[in-house]
């Protein structure tokens, strides 16, 4: 292994801009708020409590910073996460010490798995009480250690501004991720002169931009030699803002593109070269293309097991070029022929300068034939309402231009399949962690980020019941979120696996008993709603919801035992799909 030394140069632009604030005496809470504002934050999500009273007092008196009060800390962190996914800027969440902080853990892990820039500020007991099992004390930097990019326990009020600056820098650069700032209550109340350091000092941190030119040349040579190339784009392409370059490269070369769940919309799904999503519930033609290609170019995609299926039989005939900003992803799950560590946007620009046009039309025709022969399909029989139909109608009505959030489960996969997406940052879904309950608070965050956008939460009945208290947040702030609830009264994906792999023994996946009347539930929060049970009611109901200026919930009571197909069983080969 060669000696590797990280880049020592660090920018200090924001520090210089902050000079006018320097020298003013403030409380720790005020310093934190001012530092957030200097980082360009105008919106935070959170939930107050004993250890953050001084901070909340500063928020009360803040000039620019606005705060959204959710009804659960997990709702706040998911909202901040979605805010970041929609805007590309770090989301900020605040919670109190102890249970407030531990309630963030799922959301922090969620952001970590999906590489979302997030800054979580947690209250902590006073510094001299730390380590004494004090009331509402939890070692949150310890608890979140494996799911954060970095974390800080603030020990001096004078450090706050610099820590905020560094936290935003780390959260939003390189491979983005969550950063925790744990702020003891006495530090938040203590006073100090505001000082925004002009320069950051993080000698152990490096941000890859361009790929190694030799490896770029090798990739170009392999493209020239290949006859059946395919591109698989992942969330890294979205984070890099690489859509224009990706489109240009693909149109120049005429190579089919597959987008993972995290990359939906990074390449327009109505483009003829788009093959949709790969993997467990991907399209048959995407999986066939991966299985048959002789060159696979992965751009910001980490070869998750839901994408690869059985690793040994993944892209068996292909050489693999792996472009990733995180060197540790390369070679982690699959063997790679050409590793390129770099920012997807920069690497694509490098490739664009060197690639030569080649005729791949035979390969394209073969892929298009698969697409004609094995399209996504479901049977629409009379009498029952098909969830796929509902989601297809949402797509047709919104033409792929709405911001869609989802929970996790069958409805999520149907949304990924049937709700095509043509722009990046408009399909907001919990990919890596697979967090049920994500969809509703994510819709809150998305709507707050884009007040004028149409935001639709495609929800499951199991998932919605995990976070339904956030209906109150929607109501309080008058957010015009539309909730399309796909209600099959099951934990549908659990039931599907039980049907296919556990002899139809539906162990604790039936939620019919005890399921609420969701329209009444919405009504209890002052949110309009209606129930739909027939196909012909779907479109009018969706039109009504979309044309209603405030929030609206539609409960679609769908066929209970519908399955998501195609399906590659866990650990199976991509070209062996059930229900193709």
């Amino acid at each position, binding site marked *: *292994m060669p000696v590797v030394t*990280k880049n020592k140069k660090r920018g200090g632009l924001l520090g210089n801009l902050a000079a006018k604030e320097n020298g003013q005496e403030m409380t720790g809470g005020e310093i934190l708020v001012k530092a957030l504002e200097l980082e360009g934050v105008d919106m935070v999500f959170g939930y107050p409590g004993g250890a953050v009273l001084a901070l909340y007092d500063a928020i009360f008196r803040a000039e620019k910073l606005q705060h959204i009060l959710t009804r659960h800390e997990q709702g706040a962190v998911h909202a901040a996460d979605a805010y970041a996914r929609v805007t590309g800027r770090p989301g900020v969440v605040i919670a109190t010490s102890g249970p407030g902080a531990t309630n963030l853990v799922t959301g922090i892990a969620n952001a970590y798995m999906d590489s979302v820039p997030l800054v979580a500020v947690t209250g902590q007991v006073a510094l001299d009480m730390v380590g004494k099992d004090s009331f509402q004390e939890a070692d949150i930097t310890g608890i979140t250690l494996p799911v954060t990019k970095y974390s800080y326990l603030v020990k001096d009020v004078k450090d706050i501004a610099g820590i905020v600056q560094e936290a935003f820098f780390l959260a939003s650069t390189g491979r983005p991720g969550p950063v925790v700032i744990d702020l003891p209550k006495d530090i938040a109340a203590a006073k100090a002169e505001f000082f925004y350091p002009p320069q950051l000092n993080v000698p152990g*941190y490096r941000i890859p931009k361009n790929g190694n030119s030799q490896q770029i040349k090798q990739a170009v040579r392999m493209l020239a030699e290949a006859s059946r190339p395919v591109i698989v784009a992942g969330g890294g392409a979205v984070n890099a803002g690489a859509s224009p370059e990706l489109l240009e490269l693909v149109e120049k070369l005429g190579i089919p593109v597959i987008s993972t769940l995290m990359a939906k919309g990074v390449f327009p799904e109505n483009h003829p070269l788009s093959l949709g999503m790969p993997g467990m519930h991907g399209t048959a033609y995407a999986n066939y293309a991966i299985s048959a290609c002789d060159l696979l170019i992965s751009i910001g995609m980490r070869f998750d097991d839901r994408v690869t299926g059985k690793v040994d039989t993944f892209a068996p005939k292909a050489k693999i070029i792996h472009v990733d900003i995180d060197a*540790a992803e390369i070679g982690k799950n699959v063997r790679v022929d050409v590793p390129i560590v770099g920012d997807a946007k920069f690497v694509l620009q490098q490739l664009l300068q060197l690639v030569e046009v080649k005729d791949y039309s035979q390969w394209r025709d073969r892929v298009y034939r698969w697409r004609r022969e094995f399209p996504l399909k479901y049977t629409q029989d009379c009498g029952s309402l098909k969830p796929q139909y509902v989601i297809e109608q949402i797509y047709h009505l919104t033409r792929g231009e709405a911001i869609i959030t989802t929970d996790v489960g069958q409805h999520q996969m149907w949304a990924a399949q049937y709700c095509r997406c043509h722009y990046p940052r408009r399909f907001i879904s919990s990919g890596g962690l697979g967090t049920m309950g994500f969809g509703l608070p994510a819709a809150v965050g998305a709507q707050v980020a884009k007040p004028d956008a149409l935001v639709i939460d495609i929800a499951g009945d199991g998932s919605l019941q995990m976070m339904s208290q956030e209906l109150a947040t929607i109501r309080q702030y008058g957010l015009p979120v539309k909730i399309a609830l796909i209600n099959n009264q099951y934990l549908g994906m659990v039931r599907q696996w039980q049907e296919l792999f556990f002899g139809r023994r539906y162990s604790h996946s039936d939620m019919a008993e005890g399921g609420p009347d969701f329209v009444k539930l919405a009504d209890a929060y002052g949110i309009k709603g209606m129930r739909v049970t027939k196909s012909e009611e779907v479109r009018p109901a969706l039109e009504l919801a979309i044309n209603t200026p405030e929030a609206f919930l539609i409960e679609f009571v769908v066929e209970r035992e519908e399955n998501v197909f195609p399906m590659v069983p866990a650990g199976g080969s991509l070209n062996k799909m059930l229900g193709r």
Partner: protein
Amino acid sequence: MKHTLAVLVENRPGVLTRIAGLFSRRGYNIDSLAVGRTENPAISRMTIVVEGDDRVIEQVGKQLYKLIDVIKLTDITDEEYVDRELFLIKVNADPATRGEIMQIVDIFRARIVDIGKNSLIIEATGDEGKINAIESALRPFGIREVVRTGKIAMVRGPK
């Protein structure tokens, strides 16, 4: 195969936890880990001995390097380097066996640093092979306690 990694890290709170946590979370095996500050008090140096095939070692290196507090990382396994370990051992020693133990101590250029009524504490430094040899030479007398620092290492020559 065992690899020896020389790692420079920022001397910040929690850095040891981050590295130890990384090894346990990713399922890597630490053979030994020694840490102390360098000539620059803001920087600590760790010598980590880790067991694994090339693929595992490559991942260990990349995952370590990804940690924000890690400044520089070198796998010195294939380099010319000096390595040492400090070792204290307490062995049973009555007047009848003391002479024999002292001979072993001389052979290994170790030192007796404490004499008790029925025991001795011996201090030795050396590479892993030497330390293991002393330990097995002393085993017949009855080992009461052993403490080892883990390996520290430095590459030979100017670099």
